[in-house]
């Protein structure tokens, strides 16, 4: 009962501290519950969508010329296969959405009963049933809307050798397998009669890999097959070679991974940040308790003198802080309900699936329980000094603080009175501010790291260095390879108009590497390959792989590998490691000589990275003027428009702003709490300052400057930490999207924005928190 009375009194007397802990805990529990729930909801929604769509374990696209009945039958007869389904499709690579060409390949299929879900026009929900489609209409997937910014009612146009087709977007349907923005091909739906007409009109062109009739093959494994999707695919291919004939294939596991990839990355970073926030709460609590023990030495002595044991006093502290945490955790969990809807929606443009809005209460409760247990340990650790409180010392006032000389002490200067006084206030009590410095450093590290991630996506050179192919000028022939003459002509036109950093003639195809289907890049000039180690593949038996692929398949430079494609099967040597973000880094590359050995010849894509992006338009115009009019020419000075990761910038920005917002709120609470303690400890000094002529405004400024010093030191440490660890951390996190060597590009705004935010917040919040200075009366110094 006595403890409860003291508990009530303590909470009432120190309601600022209590509310501060409650607020921090609200933020932490809201953040943790939201992030974990969203992570789980997105994964669960993807699983459910795959289930509803009866997605196959193995999918592949094979041009009709290559898919023989025998080949298909051999798969159907395979003992591991339950059944095989096929779907007719038209492969279309030249399509214009709102008159702008979309770079992905589309598989046009007739609308069928497999499509069971359609989005409302604003993507906020699903319609009760899929609407019938008109012969002039087309249904797209949300990933296209994300990448091309199109909406219901917009026109789109196909160009084939048979002529042009204009269709109207009548809606967006759910296609869980390839509907997400991260997958490089898309399935779109038209009315059956439109499909028949289109299919009949599509010519059999000279390069069947580029356009024409294809069959999508869906292979389902037996219910008793215990192999993973990857192992299943390898076994099927080993026994039937069907994948060797496909121009694209993927397992369900791979496609799910691609769909969920970015939300996983963002959630991982957010969880890391949430852990830091939880750590900050514990640190703040420990600091607060330590300061409280120093400040309440006399009261604690009196309690001891009255018979309170150290154990009871420590229990009092535990109850006080735990109560604040529990209240905060409950409110935070409730507040996470609307946050889950809001935050979950951020990923919808990428996953093209509406995420569930469930609260993952179980995980949330376990995590909060862990935090509470850790809190108890921290409180017990922080209150161990209570054992040393002596009632005699406390009552005789022997416990007064003594300031000691420090090497950090600098003289108070008349020329810079405010700054030097603020620095003295900091340096003479620096232990009190270590916590604030530590927290600032952590927040700065996170803000910088997320900023680096965002700014790298806006930096051409950074993306290129990490293996993204970004070219302002691109040329593609219509449904065929370049001729030798065309390649020479293009190069000379481009070089005549602008300085070129890098130019490549390129094609890509899926081949099998030691039985696994791997995305392979073929370069006319292999010296253009972005090598990390070893050397570019010069000879006809050499290839290079990424370190992600090397690690995944247990390969290294010098190893011999088997590469198969259709009827070709050849042994290659790995000559080095290169870096590439294509196909989330699971990729290999070879030169012209190697390509010919496995039956690949000719190039279908030219790209030039210009030294000055502004020259793009001039180069584009010159190419359009001089080349065959059927050549597809793209010239865009804005490299982000041609970047393959533009779809994720929205989510990165959302993450960035969330981390900023939470950092600001944390700074507000931390500054308020530390300021409040400092204010109580320095009340007498404040009175003296007033008595010698300082105004309240000047004193508030001293407070604000002191916290600015703390923010400067913390930020500097945060920047150093970021220089040391951000790249490593991001390489680890972004490995799944093919970035294994994240290159940090510290631009002025990358660093300045978080620095200004943190410094500004510290200064402003300290100035606001120090408003109590006004209430300090000089009279308080009087002893009657």
């Amino acid at each position, binding site marked *: 009962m006595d403890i409860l009375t003291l508990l009530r009194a303590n909470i009432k007397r120190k309601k600022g501290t209590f509310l501060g802990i409650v607020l921090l805990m609200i933020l932490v529990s809201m953040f943790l519950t939201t992030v974990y729930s969203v992570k789980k909801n997105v994964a669960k929604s993807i699983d459910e969508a795959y289930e509803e769509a009866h997605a196959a374990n193995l999918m592949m696209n094979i041009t009709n010329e290559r898919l023989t009945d025998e080949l298909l039958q051999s798969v159907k007869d395979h003992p591991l296969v339950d059944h095989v389904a096929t779907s007719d499709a038209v492969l279309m690579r030249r399509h214009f959405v709102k008159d702008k060409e979309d770079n992905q390949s589309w598989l046009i299929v007739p609308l069928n009963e497999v499509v069971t879900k359609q989005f409302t026009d604003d993507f906020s929900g699903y319609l009760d049933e899929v609407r019938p489609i008109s012969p002039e209409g087309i249904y797209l997937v949300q990933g296209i809307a994300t990448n091309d910014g199109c909406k219901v009612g917009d026109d789109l146009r196909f160009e084939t050798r048979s002529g042009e087709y204009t269709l109207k977007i009548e809606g967006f349907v759910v296609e869980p397998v390839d509907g997400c923005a991260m997958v490089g091909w898309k399935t779109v739906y038209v009315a059956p009669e439109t499909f028949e007409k289109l299919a009949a009109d599509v010519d059999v062109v000279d390069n069947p890999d580029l356009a024409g009739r294809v069959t999508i093959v869906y292979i389902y494994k037996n219910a008793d097959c215990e192999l993973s999707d990857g192992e299943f695919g390898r076994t099927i291919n080993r026994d039937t070679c069907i994948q060797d004939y496909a121009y694209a294939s993927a397992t369900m596991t791979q496609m799910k991974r691609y769909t969920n990839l970015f939300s996983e990355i963002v959630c991982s970073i957010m969880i890391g940040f949430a852990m830091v926030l939880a750590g900050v709460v514990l640190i703040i609590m420990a600091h607060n308790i330590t300061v409280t023990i120093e400040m309440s030495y006399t009261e604690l002595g009196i309690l001891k003198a009255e018979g309170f044991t150290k154990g009871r006093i420590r229990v009092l502290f535990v109850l006080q802080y735990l109560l604040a945490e529990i209240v905060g955790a409950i409110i935070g969990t409730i507040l996470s309900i609307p946050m889950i809807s809001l935050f979950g929606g951020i990923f919808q443009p990428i996953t093209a699936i509406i995420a569930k809005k469930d609260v993952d209460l179980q995980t949330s409760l376990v995590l909060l329980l862990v935090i509470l247990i850790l809190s108890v340990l921290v409180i017990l650790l922080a209150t161990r000094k209570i054992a040393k409180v002596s009632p005699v010392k406390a009552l005789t006032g022997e416990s*007064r*603080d*003594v*300031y000691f000389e420090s090497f950090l002490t600098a*003289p*108070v*200067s*008349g*020329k810079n*009175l405010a700054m030097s*006084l603020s620095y*003295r*206030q900091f340096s*003479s*009590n620096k232990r009190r501010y270590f916590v604030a410095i530590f927290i600032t450093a952590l927040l700065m590290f996170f803000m910088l790291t997320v900023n680096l991630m965002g700014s790298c996506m806006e930096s051409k050179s950074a993306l290129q260095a990490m293996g993204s192919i970004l070219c302002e000028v691109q040329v593609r022939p219509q449904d065929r390879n370049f001729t030798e003459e065309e390649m020479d002509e293009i190069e000379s036109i481009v070089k005549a108009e602008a300085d070129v950093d890098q130019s490549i003639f390129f094609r890509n195809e899926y081949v099998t590497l030691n039985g696994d289907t791997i995305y392979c890049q073929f370069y006319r000039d292999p010296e253009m390959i972005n090598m990390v180690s070893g050397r570019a593949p010069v000879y006809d038996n050499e290839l290079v792989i990424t370190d992600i692929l090397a690690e995944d398949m247990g390969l290294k430079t010098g190893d011999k590998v088997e590469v198969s494609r259709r009827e070709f099967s050849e042994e290659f040597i790995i000559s080095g490691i290169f870096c590439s973000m294509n196909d989330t880094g699971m990729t290999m590359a070879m030169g012209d000589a190697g390509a010919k050995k496995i039956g690949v010849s000719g190039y279908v894509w030219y790209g030039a990275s210009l030294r000055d992006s502004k020259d793009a338009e001039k180069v584009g115009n010159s190419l359009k003027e001089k080349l065959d009019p059927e050549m597809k020419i793209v010239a865009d000075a804005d490299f982000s428009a041609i970047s393959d990761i533009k779809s994720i910038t929205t989510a990165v920005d959302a993450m960035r702003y969330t981390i900023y917002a939470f950092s600001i709120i944390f700074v507000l609470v931390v500054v308020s709490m530390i300021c409040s303690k400092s204010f109580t400890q320095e009340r*007498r*000094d404040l*009175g*003296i*300052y*007033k*008595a*010698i*002529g*300082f*105004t*309240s*405004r*000047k004193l508030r400024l001293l407070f604000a400057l002191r916290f600015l010093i703390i923010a400067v030191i913390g930020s500097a440490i945060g920047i150093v930490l970021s220089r040391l660890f951000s790249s490593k951390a991001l390489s680890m996190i972004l490995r799944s999207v093919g970035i294994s060597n994240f290159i940090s590009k510290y631009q002025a705004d990358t660093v300045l924005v978080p620095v200004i935010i943190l410094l500004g917040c510290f200064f402003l919040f300290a100035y606001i928190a120090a408003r109590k200075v006004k209430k300090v*009366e*000089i*009279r308080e*110094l*009087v*002893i*009657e």
Partner: protein
Amino acid sequence: MSSNILTAHDLCKSFAHNGGQVHVLQHVDLEIREKDFTVVMGASGSGKSTLLYALSGMDKATSGQVMFEGKDLVKMKEKELASLRSHDFGFIFQQMHLISNLTLLENVAVPGYLNNEKGASEVKARAEKLLEQMGITDVKTHIPSQVSGGEQQRCAIARAIIHEPKLLFADEPTGALNRKNTREVLDLMTDLNRNGQSILMVTHDLRAALRASRLLYLEDGNVIGEMTLPPYDKEEEKSRETQVNAWLSSMKW
């Protein structure tokens, strides 16, 4: 006779207490003259310190006027009062009240820097000189907790006069000092007054009262008696003591 430096008219100060009002100062009329060493005496609870704080603008009077150079302190805003403290008034507290994390030299120099009338190096030189005058140069780099009470009070005096105030207020400056330190501090204040410094001091210490050129007696928030004395001379301290004692007895002290 010298002119008035500070005048109080109809000055009242009340405090809320147990749901009612305690009237500590009741319609006080008073003039403080330039170059005088004015000492206010009175029994405990007579309102001496309250009067001092009201006159110095450290505390707001409930009503009345405190005029300094034609301006009413009671009506002044915080900024004007702060300016007054950093330019025209100096204050010595009973408990010294030095800033705990500044050295003695810095404690003295900071009001000078704040005053902004002299350059930083000039202020620092004057602070050093004052500490020398006060005999505490040896400990100028020490922080308050590292020096004795007497040294702290001498430092507080130096701090109060660094900006050459027109009027120096002192609230029981010897209240926390031993006999030896009391004498030294009073000698310093007497010297200051001899050099033209106007001083208003409240005390209940007879030894301090002996240094006055003018004595005021406060009872129940009213000035009920006044006595004028010739400038202090150590040689005549005995006769001065007898004279002051007699006056205090007449005030029923």
